[in-house]
């Protein structure tokens, strides 16, 4: 790189350094302020949703917006069913069931598979890896109709367990990839040393492997939970009345009862809350999971 293109100041002693440092500090402060501004701009729509959810319906639908309107829990009370006749609890419980059970299934299936793949014993192990990945890239709509027809024929429509199975298949490939990358992080030398010291496989798994991969398992569970919780298309097509999930409930919420902006915002905030909390808690793991463990 050409050293000649540089500004001349750095080499000059003491006198030259001070202004440069000052300039750098100023630019750093400016960039920091820019970052804050961007953060606020991106956060603004969400902040508006939260604020609106605490307004009364009259104050929510005003033009120009009333930012300092009095706060009320009216929207939340409406959402949780007082007076509307439609309780949000069954869909919320359905979402919880589908997300939690499918996440457990994902862990149960993915852990052994990832273990097998992380030690790369299987000839063409990378083919198996890519098979899992390719199923993730297969759009869900590609299998929707046959799944619907089969479910209809065996009486599984509007059944939460059908969603559990589908969500498991949706998240399993990502989980295998993520867990493999975590398991590959376990240093072989430690295991070797432990087995020389006479530790058996169960001991090795429990005392050495488990503590190292525990955060990875937690992250995998988190990703799987979020994707299941967010899913709309399958739930919309394959459930009706009894097995509908929170996102489906949210969409019906608007069309069936006209628009109550504060109530809709309250519902959106409530339904987003579990994912927001989980996501804030594990930002780094989220990236790693979403990039299939390719980025660490």
């Amino acid at each position, binding site marked *: 790189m050409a050293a000649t293109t540089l500004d001349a100041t750095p080499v000059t002693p003491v006198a030259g350094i001070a202004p440069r440092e000052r300039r750098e500090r100023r630019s750093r402060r400016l960039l920091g302020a820019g*970052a804050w501004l961007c953060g606020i701009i991106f*956060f603004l*729509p969400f902040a508006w949703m939260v604020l609106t959810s605490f307004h009364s319906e009259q104050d929510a639908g005003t033009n120009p917006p009333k930012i300092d309107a009095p706060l009320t829990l009216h929207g939340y009370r409406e959402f949780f069913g007082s007076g509307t006749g439609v309780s949000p609890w069954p869909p919320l419980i359905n979402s919880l069931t589908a997300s939690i059970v499918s996440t457990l299934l994902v862990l149960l299936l993915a852990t052994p598979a990832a273990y097998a793949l992380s030690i790369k*014993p299987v000839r063409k192990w990378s083919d198996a890896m890519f098979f899992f990945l390719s199923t993730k890239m297969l759009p869900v709509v590609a299998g929707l109709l046959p799944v619907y027809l089969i479910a209809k024929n065996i009486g599984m429509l509007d059944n939460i367990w059908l969603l559990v199975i589908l969500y498991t298949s949706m998240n399993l490939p990502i989980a295998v990839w993520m867990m493999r990358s975590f398991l590959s992080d376990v240093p072989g030398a430690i295991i070797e040393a432990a087995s020389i010291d006479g530790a058996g*496989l169960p001991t090795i798994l429990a005392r050495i492997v488990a503590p190292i991969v525990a955060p990875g398992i937690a992250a995998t569970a988190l990703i799987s939970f979020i994707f299941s919780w967010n899913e709309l298309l399958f739930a919309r097509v394959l459930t009706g009345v009894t097995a509908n999930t929170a996102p489906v409930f949210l969409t019906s919420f608007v069309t069936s009862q006209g628009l109550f902006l504060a109530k*809709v915002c309250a519902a959106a905030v409530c339904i987003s809350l579990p994912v927001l909390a989980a996501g804030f808690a594990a930002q780094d793991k989220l990236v790693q999971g979403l990039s299939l463990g390719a980025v660490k």
Partner: protein
Amino acid sequence: MSTPSIIGQRHAPPAVSGSAASRAPRRQRGAWARRAPLLPALVFMIVVTQLPFVGTLVISFMRWNALDPSDKGFTGFDNYKEEFTDPQLRSALTTTVVLTVTVVLVSLVLGLGLALLMDRKFPGRGAVRTLLITPFLVVPVASALLWKHALYNATYGFINGSLTWIWSVFGSDNAPQPDWLSTSPKLAVEASLIWQWTPFMMLILLAGLQSRPTDVVEAARVDGAGNWDIFRYLTFPHLRRYLELAALLGTVYVVQNFDAVFTLTSGGLGTANLPYAVYSTFYEAHDYGQASAEGVIVVILSIIVATFALRSVSSLLREETH
């Protein structure tokens, strides 16, 4: 360091290696023991994802409308021909491409800018990062509803409300009040998706920036490289793979987008993409054959993208394996 020997140690449980079994059977039994853990996941995936796709493929060659069950049979490529000649269906195809390319490119550029900003230390960096990733964590349906009703709505949406307010500050009471969703529906859908996906791009690129070896940058700076030189010759080449990865993963997710199109416009005004088209052909028009053909086309499109994505991921994987 000889990796194979360590790997060997790892997958052979000590109990087995201590036994007096002869070499060949032990290896065979070991091979099975090593493959077996893979099987449940493999079988499950094949049954739940591959078999239905075969079903879709078969139905795509059939004339099958649920509203007219008597007229059911094989038609060859008719559904596909329909797909490419019917202007409405063809528009779903172009919409998918336009929507995906726009959203991925814009959010990638914004994400890069944000990642570069966030890579520097400044007070409250963690807080800003949390603010920035929020759009990505809001449940997609909720964020689509937020944009549709709380932001875009012509009479009480935040955007038009703010316009009224700004105009009133300058003493005018006829601020423009466009109906965003009907005047520029595609742009409206894209904007909400860009809002949602920029944080994803930023997170991946930030991970890339932070994995950059600092000593090299330090050395370049000592050698007198300016900020632009460092970006051009060090940061950018290092980031290239992360940019590729972000773009391809983003594409895979955005191509499949259903929630935003469904909620914001219900596929109206030329915003129906292929996933939405499949949904409405199947769920509303009950044309199973046609819907399946659309599904197969989405898969073909995705395979084209996925081939590149797989290549990019496999290069990262190879690096890890070497």
